[in-house]
């Protein structure tokens, strides 16, 4: 199943990554090759096999509902490219 440039563009939009035309073209070819390779999994019979999302026999991990120290607001904001007061600042969301 060939991957088109518009499919790459659609996926890149989902991933919130802007790509130029040249990048879209190269990626379509490269993704095609990779997808052809991973398609080999289709040859295996996997009926009745449980998926492994995690190798450890872990379920929910709980902790006591107690207050513990956490990062200070000013430390959290220290790396922000843009901030105002106690907030991260982003471009306008609603016009």
């Amino acid at each position, binding site marked *: 199943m060939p991957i088109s440039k518009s499919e*790459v563009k659609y*996926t*890149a*939009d*989902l*991933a*919130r*990554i*802007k*790509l130029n035309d040249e*990048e879209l073209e190269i*990626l379509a070819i*490269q*993704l095609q*090759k*990779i*997808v052809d*390779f*991973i398609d*080999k*999994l*289709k040859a*295996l019979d*996997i009926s009745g*096999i*449980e*998926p*492994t*999302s*995690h*190798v*450890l026999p*872990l379920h929910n*991990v709980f*902790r006591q509902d107690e207050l513990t120290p956490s*990062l200070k607001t000013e*430390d*959290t904001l*220290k*790396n*922000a*490219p*843009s901030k105002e007061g106690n907030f*991260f600042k*982003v*471009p*306008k*969301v609603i016009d």
Partner: protein
Amino acid sequence: MDNKKDLFSLTAGEITGQKHGTEELVSSLAKRVEAVEKKVHAFAKKPQARGQWFGFHWPKPQTENCNLTIRSGPLSGIPVSIKDNICVKDDETTCASKILSGFKPPYDAEVIRRLKDAGAILWGKTNMDEFAFGSSTENSSYGPTRNPHNLECVPGGSSGGSAAAVAADETIISLGSDTGGSIRQPAAFCGVVGLKPTYGRVSRYGLIAFASSLDQIGPITKDVRDCAVMMNIISGYDPKDSTSANIEVPDFTKSLNGEIKNLRVGLPKEYFTHGMDNEVKAAMDEAIATLKTKGAKFIEISLPHTEYAVAVYYIVATAEASSNLARFDGVQYGFRQMNSSGLIDMYKNSRGEGFGNEAKRRIILGTYVLSSGYYDAYYLRAQKVRTLIKRDFDTAFKEIDCIITPTSPTPAFKIGEKATDPLKMYLSDIYTISVNLAGVPAISIPCGFTKEKLPVGLQIIAKPFDEEMLFKAAFAYESQTNWRKIKPKL
């Protein structure tokens, strides 16, 4: 002490208990970095360039030779270099990516806290493939690292800087991270020791995540003893990492006794068929013969789903990466493209400009395999095949104590050789990837050199939480050989 030996060339074990001062050691290493770093480029941030000459516990020195107070502990005064994806408080940590440029973590990773407690000196941040995406350390915003044994070759990756720094004697020990071979493959290419612990053995708190069901932090060292000492320090339960296993940590140095009589060693037949370089094969045969003389028994085993491992990995790892890397959006830290119209446009522009090519490729592949209509065909199917791969190991370990394979099918390749063909690069991890999918521990140790004087690595794989077995077998082999004494000519 052997006065003819430069201090920088010693292991932590050799340094500890010597009469020289830490200043002398640090000064020796600093001179070494000055002498060879231009050729190797192992560091993303060199130790001295970052005001880190004397680590975090020490007052800033007035001169290079002032008196210093060193915290006591098992790594007292030992310089340890840190891969650039492990958070060190207030020191730029960027995963070799433009999108994290300028990021100074407000906290230490758990492994860093433990190293500081053990008295280690933090010795620079090492270069890597961007976000650990790669097998060559060519995909770095800092430029490529070179293999100290041959500067035209890659050091492996993604922890290529960590392995090259140890091999070039620019540091004593490094920390790396391993998602599909990123500690073991560079350790093999550079002729040093590298260990990927069992999934859950070492806390990932403060490791910038790539693929959360696969990532582990581990040591890269000059010998097996230093590796065991490091594992004693960094292993153990940490409530800050919900995947950290609450399992007792033994003293790994107790496994360094050289006793491997009647050890049952498995040789997976699927690994020894095609694609293995002849010189790698010859080194393996020699290593097997050496272990036999020490009393190890070899048994052919089968890991029947081996050929599917790379395909499973590039679905699972990219899917998890696409999710983990969603956090780099220009809001909380790192790079933001300032000329954007609106929020979504800002996300797209920041990520489009901030990520390198391999990062974009993997995020988009991961998004693709998770997207509506493809989820069952790719992601869910890959998770099921992962179950089969894990079962292969469970079955094999019923009959054997450990498995031996080459770490990589070839020695280090040339810089640029695989850079334009992502799939070819991915296939170079064929012997290391299954280990991460199954969550088992493995170590790579030097087992020879090719005619071109490139190192070859031997991989030993054990059952979950049986790192003691890795140390037992690795130490027994290492004590019969002298590979680690062959240093690169720089």
